[in-house]
Each structure stands twice: as structure tokens, then as C-alpha cells.
């Protein structure tokens, strides 16, 4: 097997062949999920805890469904409500949970690196469901699967990632993954939403959306993360929409068969035109949600296999 990791903390640690292994397995799970009988047994007998220190509906539901379809006992913990307010540290929380012998820990945290820190302190497999503005690996993997199924390949594509790159962990993970798979990546957005040192990332940067979209195969839109803004990154929502919102006119610069992606939840009329988002000929946004469940099933399956191998050897 070509996937030997104990945790899934980021795309940074994965080799291209490991990404392919995971996507191949996820393809099988797409088939399973479309069948009438949706149950697998890969995680039977294992306990999965979803620890979300930050609000999430979609990602948490996706992980929960993925675990349940593979037979795991799944527990959700809304962390912002409980121990944080009581002053318990992240590590104390981790140690407490660790004593309950979970097998899979799915963690989202508002601070970059928090999931890495937690993974050092527990015995189970940890999946990063998004840490600060660092990484969101399962999102990048589901995007990759969506692209591979829509385009028939995951290399030598022109892919544009548009919007709030600076605050986006989705963008980070996607830049790393798509770069590893040898695609040409363009980042489009105002300079205030570009991270520092972007010129060393091996990407092309555009602040003109029409030029940036010229001849691309894939358009990935990002949510304008208004809740993360210190304030004052853009003059106004309407100016942003005018310059960087995706509509039919701007999309006309891309290849005729270019697909449109968005990690959700969307701000219709801020970063993407509502009609375009619903256009089944161009938008693969609903496919992304479907691929999300399959990719998470595959990721947890692979980690559980490694977990069982390690425990069997011990």
C-alpha cells in the first residue's frame, strides 16, 4: 500500500502516489454511495470523534456521514460551547478525549497548527478538518477528485483559484496538491487578499480576473471570509463583485468547457453569480459535496488500515 501515514494533517506531507491511492479508493466509495445499500464495514468497531472548535455544518455532516457509512461509532463534540469557555487548554482536552480511546479524531480549530499540536499528544489517527489559515486537506482532496472525474485527468490543467487567498486554508491545500500533481496554477484576487511571499509559491498571480481566467480549464472560487477580516481589505462588496465576482461575462474568458467550483458556503452576489452557481452545465459545486463524503470515507479507511497494522504489530 502506498499510503503509510498515521494522521492526515495536511497535503504538504503527502506524495503524489499517495494522493492517487486515496482518490482511487474514493472513486470506489462514490459507487458505494450511489448504491441503494450504502453500508461498508471498513470502520466497524472503531470510534470516531468529531471535535469542532469552529462552527461547521457541512464539513462536520460530511465526516459524520462518512464515518457512519463505514460502520464507525461517531460522536460529535461542539467544542466552542464547552471546555474552551471553562478555560481548559487544547492539550488537556486532547488528553481527556484520548483517555476515552477514540480511533479517529476529526479536528477543526481556528488556530493554524493546532491540529498538529493535538496530534502529537494522542494515540489515535487525527484528521485535520481545517486549522486556521493553514490547511484543509480533505477539501483539497475532494476538489481533486471532482476535477479528475470532470476532466478525466489531474495533471497539465490550467487552474485558477480566485478570491481571498490570504485567509483561505482551502487555497493553501489546493495550491500544494495541484502543484504536486503538476498543474499550472493561477491565483486571482486583489493584492490585499494575497499572502506574503506568494511569488515563491510557483504560481502565477493576477489582479485582473479576465486576464487570469484566459484559457483555464478549472475555475475555483473561494468564499470571501468576511468573518476573518480585520476590516478594510476591500473597499466594498459591490466593488469586489464587480472586479472579482464570477459571472458569465468573466467566465467567457475561460475555456468553453471550463468547470466552476466553490467550497461553500457561497455568498451569492459577492463572489459568484447565483445563476452561474446553479448552471448544471458549468457548475460542479454539488458534485464537490458528493465527492466530499467519498474522499472522507477513503481517508478514514486508509488511516484505519494503518492503525490496525500498527496495533497488530504491537
Amino acid at each position, binding site marked *: 500500500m502506498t499510503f503509510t501515514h498515521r494522521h492526515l494533517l495536511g497535503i*504538504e506531507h503527502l506524495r503524489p502516489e499517495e494522493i492517487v491511492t486515496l482518490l482511487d479508493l474514493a472513486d470506489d466509495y462514490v459507487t458505494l454511495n450511489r448504491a441503494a445499500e450504502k453500508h461498508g464495514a471498513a470502520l466497524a468497531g472503531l470510534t470516531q470523534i468529531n471535535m469542532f472548535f469552529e462552527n461547521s455544518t457541512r464539513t462536520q455532516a460530511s465526516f459524520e456521514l462518512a464515518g457512519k457509512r463505514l460502520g464507525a461509532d461517531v460522536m460529535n463534540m461542539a467544542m466552542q460551547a464547552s471546555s474552551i469557555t471553562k478555560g481548559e*487548554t*487544547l*492539550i488537556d482536552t486532547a488528553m481527556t478525549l484520548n483517555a476515552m480511546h477514540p480511533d479517529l479524531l476529526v479536528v477543526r*480549530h481556528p*488556530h*493554524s*497548527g*493546532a491540529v*498538529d*499540536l493535538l496530534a502529537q499528544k494522542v494515540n489515535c489517527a487525527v484528521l485535520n478538518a481545517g*486549522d*486556521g*489559515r*493553514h*490547511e484543509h486537506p480533505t477539501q483539497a482532496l475532494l476538489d481533486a477528485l471532482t476535477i479528475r472525474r470532470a476532466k478525466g485527468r489531474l495533471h497539465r490543467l490550467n487552474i485558477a483559484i480566485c478570491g481571498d487567498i*490570504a485567509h483561505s*486554508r482551502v487555497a*493553501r491545500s489546493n495550491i500544494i496538491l495541484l502543484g504536486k500533481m503538476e498543474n499550472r496554477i493561477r491565483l486571482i484576487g486583489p493584492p490585499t487578499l494575497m*499572502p*506574503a*511571499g*506568494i511569488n*515563491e*509559491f510557483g504560481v502565477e498571480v493576477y489582479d485582473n480576473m479576465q486576464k487570469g481566467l484566459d484559457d483555464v480549464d478549472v475555475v475555483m472560487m473561494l468564499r470571501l471570509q468576511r468573518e476573518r477580516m*480585520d476590516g478594510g481589505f476591500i473597499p466594498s462588496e459591490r466593488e469586489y463583485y464587480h472586479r472579482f465576482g464570477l459571472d458569465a461575462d468573466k467566465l467567457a474568458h475561460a475555456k468553453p468547457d471550463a468547470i466552476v467550483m466553490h467550497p461553500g458556503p457561497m455568498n451569492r452576489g459577492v463572489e459568484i453569480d447565483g445563476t452561474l452557481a446553479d448552471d448544471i452545465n458549468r457548475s460542479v459545486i454539488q458534485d464537490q459535496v458528493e465527492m466530499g463524503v467519498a474522499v472522507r470515507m477513503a481517508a478514514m479507511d486508509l488511516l484505519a488500515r494503518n492503525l490496525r497494522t500498527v496495533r497488530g504489530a504491537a
Partner: protein
Amino acid sequence: MMDILLTNAKLIDPEAGGVTFGALAVRDGKIAAIITDDSPLPAARETIDCNRKHLAPGIVDIGVKVCEPGERHKESFGTAGLAAAAGGVTTMVTRPDTDPAIDNPETLEFVIRRAREAAPVNVLPMAALTKGRQGREMTEIGFLLDAGAVAFTDCDHVVTDSKVLGRALAYARSLGALVLGHPQDPGLSAGAAATSGKFASLRGLPAVSPMAERMGLDRDIAMIEMTGARYHADQITAARALPPLERAKQNGFDITAGTSIHHLTLNALDVADYRTFFKLKPPLRDEEDRLAIAEAVQTGLIDVISSMHTPQDEESKRLPFEAAASGAVALETLLPAAMQLFHAGSIDLPTLWRAMSLNPAKRLGLPSGRLAIGAPADLVVFDPHAPFVMDRTMLHSKSRNTPFDGARMQGKVIATYVAGAPVYQRS
């Protein structure tokens, strides 16, 4: 009759800038004779053979945080003093960023009394420049000077209101008081945990451009020109801040600058996978900056190397990087870390001791920091080559937050003397 005779030593003379073989005699706590030729050695009550190891003036460390009052569980004068003695630091110039801040003569007197009771090395306290380090009203600079404050600083709290800073500098100047600034633009650096660049962006850390340091220094230099104050920049860590510093010195302003040992020996990539012991303020810089700062120490543009000893307990470091506390302990690792610069060929030994002993002593008007007859016998005997693996559990500090844990280092202190009395001897 001399009290102590240290023979068979390699004497590091930061003033003359050389390393010579010889002996040094101590009487009444002061250096009484230095013998570097064939002339006969004076008689002494006690003769110590240094075994051809190095003998240098003890380190004068500007900017040590001892967590009294307020956070004695992190560091006390007793533990900091032991750490200093073990690290060859004979004078700790302490910071006022305690809780509460050292901003009135009564608190200062408490600190001086505690230091006298508990610390085996010299302790010279600094006091806050503004009340509560809040940047609104100046402290009683005159009374604090009388009570023993050697300099005034709000530490990492930048006095943002230029009018307040201007008045404090002008008032301090009238008393001849030295003011330490923290060159940093507070708007740009707010919330930052790393230096901006590819590494911080990949790690998803809030970051600040090193330009913030230059902007802060530019502002402070303008204030010095306006007021004529005596000014010392606590930490210059970015290459871009060097040209304005050089111009200010050429213009004849009363300005000196320091840097921290960590910024001279580590860079931003050392943070690796969010290692919080490497979280400093200002954050670690790129390698090009580190090299430029080391060169500036060698040329003398940067005057002072400090430990910027900042104890933090385990709890405040065992957090996600953004939320973790800044700072590192360094009293005991200052000398071996400085030896990395010596072994790498970037800074020679006399220059290191100019930056660690002579210059800080001169800036504070102290007679120490030099190997000269009549100077206090504050001395360190050390072996710059002795290798060891740094084990943080062996540190004397109450807090063990050193980025050098597990590092292979060279340079061991063999003995430390304060006013001719041994305060540390390696067993």
C-alpha cells in the same frame, strides 16, 4: 599580596581587541594586575590554573526579564541569578515589564532589595518610561534615577503617541537618562506571530513585514533628532533597519543598538512545525537578515548582544503557535550560542565581548566589562571548544523555554567571578 591569581589563561581584551596569553591578579574585588610577558607573577593567597582556557570580562546583559514582582513561578532573582552565574553573566540589567510594571520608586526599591537578597550576580534594574507601560504619562524619571534605575523602557510596548514619547525623551535628556526603544510599527505588527514570507504563508501564521522594524526605528530616530535624547534600540533584527541606523550614527545622534542572541543564531525556518519555543518578539527573521545582523555586530554598527531572557512557563508555550506566549530563556545559552558565531567565523572573540560586555557597560556608564587594572573583577573562564548536547532540564532557570533544547553546542563556562568572588564553578 593579591587575593586571587588566575594563571595560564587566554585573556580576551575587548578594548584592545586581542587574545593574549597570560595571567590576571585580583585584589579587593578589582583587577590589580595583568601579566602578559615574562615578568614574575605576583604573590597571591590563591592561585588558579586556567589550563589554557579563555578568560574574559563577565557578560553585561541588557534586557533580562526576572519575573518579580508578579510571576515568581516563572523566574525569581534567585533562579535567574544562578542561571546568570552559570552562563558567565555577571551583570543582569533587568526589564520592567513585570506585573505590575516597575514604574515607581517603591516597586523599584522592592526589586533592588530582592535582587540583593537572592541574586549572586550584579543586578541593575531598568524602570518603565511611562506609567503602567501604557504610553500615556511619563514615570517619575528623576526619582527612579535616584532610586537606582539605570535606563528607562516600556519594553515591547511601543509608545505610540509621539507627543508622549517626545516629552518623555526630552525630560529624560535633561537628567541624562538612557531610554531603550523597541523599534516596531505597532499597527503593522499587531497580532503577528511570524515574519511575513513564504514560510509564514504556508504555515498560515499571521505575520509582519520586517519593514515594521525600520518604520519604528525611523520614527524613533526622528524623535532623537528632535529631543537630543540618549537612545538605545533594544533589538535590531532586520537588514532593512541597518541603513537608517548607520545614518543616525553618522549624524552624531546619541544612539546605540542591540540585538538578541536568538536573532543572531536562528532564522524563521527554525519554527518548523509550529515549535513555540521559537516564538519570539520580534519574530525570527530570514537567513539573509540573520547574516546581515551578524555582520553588523562584527563591524560595530550594532553595539550590543543581549540574551533577551524571557521566561515562560510550560502552560503558556503548550498552545497553538498563534496563541502561545513569546520569548525564550537565554542567560545560560548566551555564551555557547555566541560561540556558534565564533566557530562559524562570522564574529571574532574580542568583538563578541565588545558586544556582550564592554559596550553595554560603557553605555550604562559602568566600570566593568573590560580587562583593565582597576576594573571590577567580574570575570568568566570558559572553554569555547568544549562540546555538549543542550538539555533544557539542566537549566537553572525556573522556566526552561529554550529553543536550543537538544542542540549540539560548543562553549562551556568553567567559572564565573563577581568582584573577585567565585559565583559559579563547574563541577
